[in-house]
């Protein structure tokens, strides 16, 4: 019998698990996909939002501002790269400057610090590639960037180290409630006193299994396009237009790995599996961002993808259900969900306490995690050191992104089972050649380390096998 079952192993589920792993509780995460962070979290922009563009009385706004502070501390403890790059929300005319002032005021009510409106001379010096027609911008220094999937992986790793059980490829199919919950899954029946529903796009389906019918998740698609790393310094800040009703707009994003990203679109779709990109999405993104940074060239696009925001109304839904006691919904966690995740975890922890769950601190809680080594981030001195300690760091597998065999083996030891799992953890296959050169080598390493034949290696589990068979 578990105390708590968390359904969903995205950044929200793993953040909750890590927070609760401080206490003497028996906790498990059940993840539908074959690896952690393979749902909504994998196609996140990686922005740690300051909290602007949210209403001052919204749960979203409050948790975002709090999350922005917590993420930094968490990043230090868990060795996740976080960079405070700041954001600029831009204005083209006097009317738009008035809107910047409103956003600033709303932000101040939420407690966002050090915001200031900057004008053309400042922009010319600090953001030279910006459209010269932009006359002013709201500078919000506390905006930052992080790798969304590495955040989820590192959280889950630290949670696991502190006793959380993690089951992947474990889709939940039914929930029964008597004195406690019985959760039927692909890997068998789990029983638990509490359920935390952090199932992202599928949170409504999970809620319905427990008899809660008033949550409906509407996927909102965002297409994103990544530029070559050579363009890393095309902007110094995250560049935002003024927000619309439904989204923060199409942005020029800095990412923690260096590649600038442009996007996202915001399209209502029906299908929870519709991760397709199209020419109209690209055209829309290009025309929007060229208005911000005119020198952006579609020729520099090296990759693209689409993600689905799990939208349920305007705000986050985080509550214990009155009709189903001890069932906590954490639904509709769209942007700024990544930023808010650590604050959501604390919020859920308080809900559990209020609901009567007894919290006893673990004496042997391990708050720290050793930072994952990435060759591409290392200088010559560090390279020398790590290569002399482990020869495999000098054995380059992915040449575009400089990823060594040692990093790929370490990723597998930390839970990667698929080609995408390797990609998200190490960046191998995510550069200019897109795995053209390193795919076979990575397949071999996976095959050897996991002891499975080459023809069973998949892109992301299920029926996504890389090849169909061995030569006859």
């Amino acid at each position: 019998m578990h105390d708590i079952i968390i359904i969903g192993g995205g950044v929200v589920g793993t953040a909750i698990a890590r927070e609760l792993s401080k206490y003497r509780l028996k906790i498990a995460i059940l993840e539908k996909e074959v690896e952690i962070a393979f749902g909504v979290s994998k196609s996140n922009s990686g922005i740690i939002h300051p909290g602007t563009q949210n209403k001052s009385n919204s749960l979203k706004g409050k948790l975002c501002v709090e999350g922005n502070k917590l993420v930094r501390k968490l990043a230090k403890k868990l060795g996740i790269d976080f960079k405070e790059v700041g954001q600029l929300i831009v204005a083209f005319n006097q009317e738009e400057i008035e809107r910047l002032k409103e956003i600033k005021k709303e932000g101040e009510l939420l407690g966002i610090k050090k915001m200031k409106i900057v004008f053309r001379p400042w922009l010319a010096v600090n953001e030279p590639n910006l459209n010269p027609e932009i006359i002013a911008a709201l500078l919000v220094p506390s905006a930052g960037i992080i790798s969304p999937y590495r955040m989820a992986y590192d959280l889950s790793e630290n949670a696991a180290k502190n006793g959380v059980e993690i089951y992947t490829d474990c889709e939940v199919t039914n929930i029964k409630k008597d004195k406690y919950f019985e959760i039927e899954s692909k890997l068998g029946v789990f029983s638990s006193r509490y359920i935390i529903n952090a199932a992202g796009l599928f949170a409504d389906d999970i809620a319905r299994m427990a008899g809660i019918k008033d949550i409906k998740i509407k996927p909102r698609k965002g297409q994103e396009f990544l530029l070559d790393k050579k363009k890393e310094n095309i902007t110094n800040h995250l560049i935002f237009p003024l927000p619309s009703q439904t989204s923060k707009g199409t942005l020029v994003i800095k990412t923690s790995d260096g590649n600038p990203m442009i996007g996202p679109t915001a399209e209502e779709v029906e299908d929870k599996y519709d991760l397709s990109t199209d020419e109209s999405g690209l055209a829309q993104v290009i025309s929007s961002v060229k208005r911000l940074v005119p020198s952006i060239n579609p020729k520099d696009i090296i990759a693209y993808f689409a993600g689905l925001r799990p939208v349920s109304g305007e705000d986050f839904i985080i509550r214990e259900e009155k009709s189903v006691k001890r069932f906590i919904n954490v639904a509709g966690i769209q942007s700024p969900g990544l930023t808010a995740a650590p604050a959501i975890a604390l919020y859920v922890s308080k809900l559990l306490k209020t609901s009567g769950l007894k919290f006893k601190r673990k004496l042997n809680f391990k708050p720290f995690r050793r930072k994952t080594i990435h060759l591409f981030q290392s200088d010559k001195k560090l390279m020398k050191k790590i290569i002399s300690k482990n020869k495999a760091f000098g054995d380059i597998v992915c040449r575009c992104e400089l990823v060594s065999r040692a990093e790929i083996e370490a990723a597998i030891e930390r839970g990667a089972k698929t080609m995408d799992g390797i990609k998200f953890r190490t960046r191998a296959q995510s550069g200019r050649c897109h795995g053209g050169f390193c795919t076979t080598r990575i397949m071999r390493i996976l095959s050897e380390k996991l002891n499975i034949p080459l023809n069973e290696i998949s892109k992301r589990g299920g029926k996504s096998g890389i090849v169909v068979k061995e030569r006859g």
Partner: protein
Amino acid sequence: MMKERDLIIVGGGPAGMAAALSAYEHGVQDILLLERDQFLGGILNQCVHTGFGLNYFKEVLAGPEYADRFMKRVIAIKEIEVSLKSFVIKLSQKKEITFLKPGKISEVKAKAVILATGCRERTREMAHIAGTRPAGIFPAGLAQKLINIEGLIPGNEAVIVGSGDIGLIMARRLTLEGSKVKAVIEIQKKSKGLQRNIVQCLEDFGIPLYLSHKIARIHGADRVSKVDVVQVDDNFKEVPNTSFSIGCDTVLISAGLIPENELAEMAGVDMDRKTNTPLSKEQNKTSVDGIFVCGNACQIYDLVDWVTKDSLLAGKQAAEYIKRIK
């Protein structure tokens, strides 16, 4: 003090090997050849089909045979030091090179450098093909490596994008391995491939070639399920009402090759942004004295024979340069 060598060649494929041999023959006595793979030969190792060497050797050879002739000679010359599994991470304008090997990071300076780094394939992403991102989409050269080196069959039913030589050769290769190639889709009005390949790889097997067509969309969640194909006009715009679908589990992309010149760029060599090759007034020379480029890194060649010729010249040029500065 950093160790100094006369000539460092980056890349041990046909270009690098020919350049090394030529430099030696023209008097260079101290050559370091850096190859990132565990063998010399480069891409030739996976080209098991024949048609190599007609021009240079006046014989018909398979890729590995062509490579082997150079390999044997390179290995026999003690003045050419071959360093395998050696990956160059840095090249400076002063011709200082940093490279990694399992267990080692090395820094070495050269009087002259020849970059024989070959090329990479254009990807689906660069061709901006819309749709989903399932398994089953391969650059054609990767599919070739999977079959010929790893002994794996990439798919049962394939559509090939682009009718360049690699695409054509892979159409035949897949067919011979028992996979069904349903179509080759070419956006241009004419194939870029060699005529002999059109006949021997497509026509002989009855594989349809759709000229002035493109893939409008790739479908499939886990694995490719089908592609939408559409006709295009002279400006590559879609012609209305010409769309049709082809069911398949595999898409090979053979949409052209891009010279690999990230090292040249790092060393401050002036580049032609359009072709990704160094700008130069004279074949193989770059804007940085003593840094030469040869083979497919210099320009994309149809035949390896031309790569060899080009690289022999680069070896000679480097030898002359080293003599001059001594």
